[in-house]
């Protein structure tokens, strides 16, 4: 985007003159960073307030090429900012922190950061950051270009979808969102296949996604395998691989949604519109950012792992992801509490509050978590579901970085969080921090989605408390959850790009998730809440919702169990491009999923 705009001197001399926005509340670090960047001959703008930064970015999206932001800031969490930027502006964002914990780094990745630097940062590191700008542009170009050939199946493997391919369906494509089914091909991640970039991308338009979700619902989340889905959908030129990867994303999305649901609920309402762009988001359809999730296999696992026990699948970003994630074993999704079996908890707790829109969502959240709980637990970091960007609602997950938190919080910011005001649910989780499981709450509630979530978290006791508070909030998640999914498309893309979905991991869970997802879908989509994933939502968590999902309903109302997943939209895609109303209505399918899941789940999602 910006490279070309750099004016006459920009293009030729790039990276000289590259416009960087640096955000850090610490004046010493900011001064240092600014000076270093100027020394690299970039054009630098500095600010110590994240809000100011966002404002500047919103004023003119083309004013900057790259954003560098600190992680810990008083007025807004760096990950939230990351999600916002990803969703709304689709700019590369580099995170900066004195803390190099793997968890945090993972969180950054799942939220879509294209790099993570440690303070004190050295000039050598800054001299190369321009590569992120170029890479992104290139990706966009590639994506838009290759639509015509069906992709050779970059992934064929795994049946369930090469996650990596779809990851790319990136949001960048929004313009392409045409909705033509035929010839759509998903772009593989660049890391996946060498030819991935050249493959024609499948654009998962709203209609297509609806069909997809309908098919998934019809089959039941357990039985929703790509082949059958493909048959049911009966769309020309859609390959099984496309469906597989899309399914993966969707699952992630569901997971994510559950977390975000709370927050998103509100957003969902707002988002309502199914914009194609949203769909583009990555074909995530709910799968959430696979990319983000995985980034790399490890990520995938990590994601799940990171999902702090709370199951918050890392970034709830993709609503789908959220949803799906949350859907850990289909039956288990009890939105109630996502029990974090593991440690991470924090995030889960977040998730709990999440309860994306539908109660169901919560479950979903929990779900993934449960699946991955063990994995997540390790990683913890991933799940920050709490992080859902929802600005206000995110409070839910305030989080400590736990994976869950992050994610959810991410959610909150996003319009997705619209998921019914409840998205705040996640807040509850933040408290929990450890109780990742809280996420379980994510269940997408149908309407109040979030409120249920709050209850979700029971996993972590803490969460519960906090959640209790947030629960109230969470409930609001109304199915608007769809909104949650909206999470920044950027996030979606970003993660996709870099991380090949570890969809594999997802795939495993996919089965169980199916059911979950369905429920989730149901929950989620109540209102068309497209789960806008707030970029953070990446429930990256391992989709493996499967089993562990026993979401316990802790206290709270967890009505979450019923996946009221944002119905409308079915499209859980969290990554809606921030076009404003990202939330594509596609969530419909998601809702179904969610609800389906919810029903099954009734177990507590144990994160």
């Amino acid at each position, binding site marked *: 985007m910006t490279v070309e705009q750099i004016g006459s001197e920009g293009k030729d001399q790039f990276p000289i003159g590259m416009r960087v926005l640096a955000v850090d*509340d*610490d*004046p*010493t*670090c900011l*001064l*240092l960073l600014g*000076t*270093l960047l100027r*020394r690299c001959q970039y054009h630098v703008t500095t600010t110590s307030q994240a809000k100011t930064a966002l404002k500047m970015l919103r004023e003119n999206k083309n004013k900057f090429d790259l954003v560098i932001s*600190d992680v*810990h800031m008083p007025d807004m969490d760096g990950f939230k900012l990351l999600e916002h930027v990803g969703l709304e502006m689709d700019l590369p964002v580099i995170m900066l*922190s*004195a*803390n190099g914990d793997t968890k945090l780094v993972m969180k950054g990745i799942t939220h879509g950061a294209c790099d993570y630097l440690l*303070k*004190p940062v*050295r*000039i050598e590191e800054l001299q190369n950051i321009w590569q992120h700008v170029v890479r992104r542009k290139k990706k966009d170009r590639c994506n838009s270009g290759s639509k015509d050939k069906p992709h050779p199946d970059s992934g064929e493997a795994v049946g369930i979808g090469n996650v990596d391919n779809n990851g790319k369906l990136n949001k960048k494509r929004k313009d392409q969102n045409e909705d033509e089914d035929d010839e759509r091909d998903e772009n593989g991640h660049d890391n996946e296949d060498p030819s991935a970039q050249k493959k024609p991308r499948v654009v998962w338009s709203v209609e297509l996604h609806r069909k997809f979700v309908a098919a998934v619902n019809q089959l039941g989340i357990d039985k929703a395998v790509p082949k059958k889905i493909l048959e049911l959908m009966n769309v020309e030129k859609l390959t099984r691989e496309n469906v597989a990867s899309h399914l993966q994303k969707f699952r992630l999305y569901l997971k994510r949604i559950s977390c975000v649901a709370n927050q998103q609920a509100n957003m969902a309402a707002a988002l309502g519109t199914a914009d194609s762009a949203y769909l583009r988001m990555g074909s995530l359809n709910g799968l959430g950012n696979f990319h983000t999730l995985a980034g790399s296999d490890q990520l995938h696992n990590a994601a799940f792992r990171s999902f702090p026990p709370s199951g918050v699948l890392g970034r709830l970003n993709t609503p789908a992801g959220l949803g799906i994630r949350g859907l850990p074993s289909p039956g288990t999704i009890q939105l109630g509490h996502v029990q974090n079996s593991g440690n991470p908890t924090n995030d889960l707790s977040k998730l709990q509050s999440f309860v994306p829109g539908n109660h169901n969502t919560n479950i979903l959240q929990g779900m993934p978590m449960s699946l991955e709980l063990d994995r997540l637990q390790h990683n913890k970091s991933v799940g920050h579901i709490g992080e859902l960007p929802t600005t206000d609602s995110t409070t839910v997950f305030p989080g*400590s970085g736990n994976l869950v938190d992050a994610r959810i919080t991410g959610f909150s910011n996003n319009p997705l969080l619209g998921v019914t005001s409840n998205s705040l649910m996640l807040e509850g989780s933040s408290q929990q921090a450890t109780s990742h499981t809280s996420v379980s709450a994510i269940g997408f509630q149908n309407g109040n989605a979030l409120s249920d979530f709050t209850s979700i978290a029971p996993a972590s006791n803490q969460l519960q408390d906090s959640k209790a508070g947030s629960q109230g909030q969470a409930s609001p998640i109304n199915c608007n959850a769809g909104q949650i999914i909206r999470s920044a498309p950027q996030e979606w893309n970003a993660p996709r790009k870099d991380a090949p979905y570890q969809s594999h991991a997802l795939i495993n869970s996919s089965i169980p998730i199916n059911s979950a997802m369905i429920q989730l879908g149901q929950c989620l989509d109540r209102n068309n809440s497209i789960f806008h994933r707030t970029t953070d939502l990446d429930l990256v968590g391992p989709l493996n919702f499967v089993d562990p999902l026993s979401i316990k309903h802790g206290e709270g109302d967890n009505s979450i169990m019923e996946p009221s997943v944002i119905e409308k939209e079915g499209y859980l895609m969290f990554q809606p491009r921030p076009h404003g109303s990202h939330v594509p209505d596609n969530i419909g399918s998601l809702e179904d999923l969610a609800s389906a899941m919810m029903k099954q789940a009734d177990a507590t999602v144990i994160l």
Partner: protein
Amino acid sequence: MERNPMRRQLASMRKSLFDQGYLDEQFMELEQLLDDANPNFVEEVVTLYYRDSARLILNLDRALERRPLDFSKLDGLMHQFKGSSSSIGAKKVKAESTLFREYCKSGNAEGCMRTFQQLKKEYATLRKKLETYFQLARQIGPMESANRPK
């Protein structure tokens, strides 16, 4: 030419700051940013650091007076402090911050308090040394304010 002895003195002061572990390579990075446009860059950054971190120290002091101790808050504050300290290359201060955070994580109140006292000492010592250093540097002349490592 009469500056030579002063320059020598400055150089040896600088060397001892590194040798004694008060400063690390990051400080050298700062020095590399000195140029005609920013002849006093290092001093500016350090001054800014001391001004801003005074606030953090105050907050930490207050937080340490509360009972029970809020470890996560303390950890958060210290994280910030550590970040800026590492940006100027304050090695010992940074080490104490790390130790402090370890104690926070394990919930060791006494360890925290003890470490914090130590940290404040190191912080004050470094400040004095740097002030002397910069003063001398200013006397020598703008471009020589910090011997740039070649």
